[in-house]
């Protein structure tokens, strides 16, 4: 399938140094944080690619780069042309539905803003009708249009954000932890809504979450991130059935599983190192049960290993063998 979005060698570096004067006086060096470090991926049209990883691994930074809220330090972000011949543009749904809605505006105006800004409807009555229609699509009533955000529950507020994102008639939605602030019963409502909107309007999703069970429910493909890089990318089923990268395996071993609770957890799973001082070589090596000397020196490149998968690990050939998969001859 034709990709809706192609991202190549994307990096974003933040300067987190103390102010220049302090640096001069205290002789502190400049500090650079590589939040996203040379990542590449594609999102097929009408599909859903998810980024997962622990907090601080760079997921939200990717979301902000893709939607133009940050400028890349390096690399390309390319949306393809949609059916209408216009370039596809992305809208974003955020984790905190309250912070992303203007508290002083009525819901009607919040949802109407992108319609007015992009001139998608002629005149006030057509705009009104469109807002009412959008409220219906996300499961709210027309009466809700006259209320303010604080009058709604978290789940309802997330519905308002979705209606607002849909108002711009996007083909592509970037969803950054859209249900992380919600209770599971409400999360189920929102995930069901997002899946049915995808089918109905042929939307493409770049979906971001730290919750593997949510990601499994939503995505066709999954990219696992660790300290600013993609360490493994595969289709959803293969990743869950046959995780190859030791970090993916760690994540899968540690998610609480209500179907088969395991009291015993691998004890030495360590902690995520500071992104300001990433370990040399493979940044996962201090936590990796498979690490050898080479891992401490050389950064593993993300390689295509066949089976439609990409993995960044020096010892991937062994992992493939262990999982009974044929290694791709290099």
């Amino acid at each position: 399938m034709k990709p809706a979005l192609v991202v190549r060698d994307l990096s974003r570096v933040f300067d987190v140094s103390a102010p220049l004067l302090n640096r001069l006086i205290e002789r502190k060096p400049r500090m650079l944080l590589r939040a996203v470090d040379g990542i590449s991926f594609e999102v097929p049209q009408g599909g859903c690619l998810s980024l997962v990883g622990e907090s601080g691994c760079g997921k939200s930074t990717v979301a902000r780069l893709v939607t133009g809220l940050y400028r890349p330090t390096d690399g390309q972000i390319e949306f393809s042309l949609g059916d209408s011949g216009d370039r596809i543009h992305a809208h974003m749904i955020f984790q905190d539905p309250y912070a992303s809605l203007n508290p002083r505006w009525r819901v009607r105006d919040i949802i109407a803003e992108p319609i007015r800004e992009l001139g998608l409807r002629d005149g006030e009555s057509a705009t009104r009708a469109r807002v009412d229609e959008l409220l219906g699509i996300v499961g709210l009533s027309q009466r809700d249009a006259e209320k303010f955000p604080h009058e709604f529950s978290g789940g309802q507020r997330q519905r308002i954000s979705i209606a607002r994102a849909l108002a711009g008639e996007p083909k592509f939605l970037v969803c950054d932890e859209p249900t992380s602030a919600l209770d599971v019963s409400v999360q189920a409502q929102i995930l069901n809504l997002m899946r049915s909107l995808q089918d109905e309007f042929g939307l493409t999703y770049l979906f971001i979450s730290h919750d593997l069970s949510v990601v499994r429910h939503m995505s066709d493909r999954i990219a696992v991130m660790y300290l600013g890089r993609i360490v493994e990318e595969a289709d959803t089923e293969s990743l869950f059935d046959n995780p190859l990268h030791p970090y993916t395996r760690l994540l899968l071993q540690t998610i609480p599983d209500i179907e088969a609770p395991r009291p015993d957890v691998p004890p030495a799973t360590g902690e995520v190192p500071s992104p300001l001082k990433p370990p040399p070589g493979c940044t996962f090596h201090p936590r990796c049960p498979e690490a050898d000397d080479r891992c401490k020196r050389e950064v593993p490149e993300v390689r295509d290993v066949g089976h439609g998968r990409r993995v960044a690990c020096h010892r991937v050939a062994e992992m493939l063998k262990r999982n009974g998969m044929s290694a791709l001859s290099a």
Partner: protein
Amino acid sequence: MPDTLTDSPMSTAASTAEPVLRVRNLSVSFPGRRGVLKALDDISFDLAPGEILGMVGESGAGKSMTGLAVQRLLEPPGHISGGEVHLLGQRIDQLPEAQMERLRGKQIGAVFQDPLTSLNPLFTVGHQISETIRVHLGGSRRAAMDQARELLRRVGIPSPDDRVNHYPHQFSGGMRQRVVIALALAAQPRLIIADEPTTALDVSIQAQIMSLLRRLCDETGVAMLLVTHDMGVIAQTADRIAVMYAGRLIELAPVHEVLRQPRHPYTRGLIGAIPALRKRAPRLTQIDGSMPRLDSIPQGCAFNPRCPEAGPRCRAHRPELSATPAGKVACWLNDGGVA
């Protein structure tokens, strides 16, 4: 699949021992301008030595309120407006505050979501832990510091000899939560109240902390009230589940029973709403609507507007907790009843 957790010898022994905590008909009220809000309404449960009781429910259901009421840490005007709380056989809901304060550090340890609320940024962690030991158990400074090192080692902090001299900000989030657990254990309490202890942590760290808490309960016999909105955490760690809804306890049973056969329609909905890890369903089971606010709790069963099985009885009368083969449930459908 193995189900060893809930069948551990500890939990069977636990069910016959005298309870560490006994809560009976506990209610908590907040008087306000527009009348009195009942945040907890007639809650009863026991906690045995070494047992972990996991308390789940939607945001605002009253989980944290239960933990705070037991510790007598309610923010005024909130107060216990009915019922009794017994700790190790002693009634504590009416104790004078001075006595309660001593009990809190000594018999009840607390672990909150944000480890920084429990730690003082100005003192080393060794100082904080050893002072707690000295206040509650006495002994010399040096002996207390040795015990602090031992506690840090026990909660899995590498090189505890150096770490006792470090300040809270020098630890990562997961390590800080370990320090808080060491601090909660310092006075050798019989009860730990842990309110969302891993919600702020990443899954791989969460798994470490939960298995640590489980191990400590098994080894020391300390009982734990584990408040969380995450059913997965409870499945992994707890012996029994208490499900809360709109200030009421609506189901109470051993973990494996609840996961295998949830009896309350709300519990069924909660479990069904969790996306499965094994297979991908086209749609998740969803519970429509949202939990009522305290000032507009429906008449009858508070869950009736969202319940797919509600009948006329549910809208008129409130079901009380009644016995099931392995636990308790508050639903008219229990034991072949009619809704």
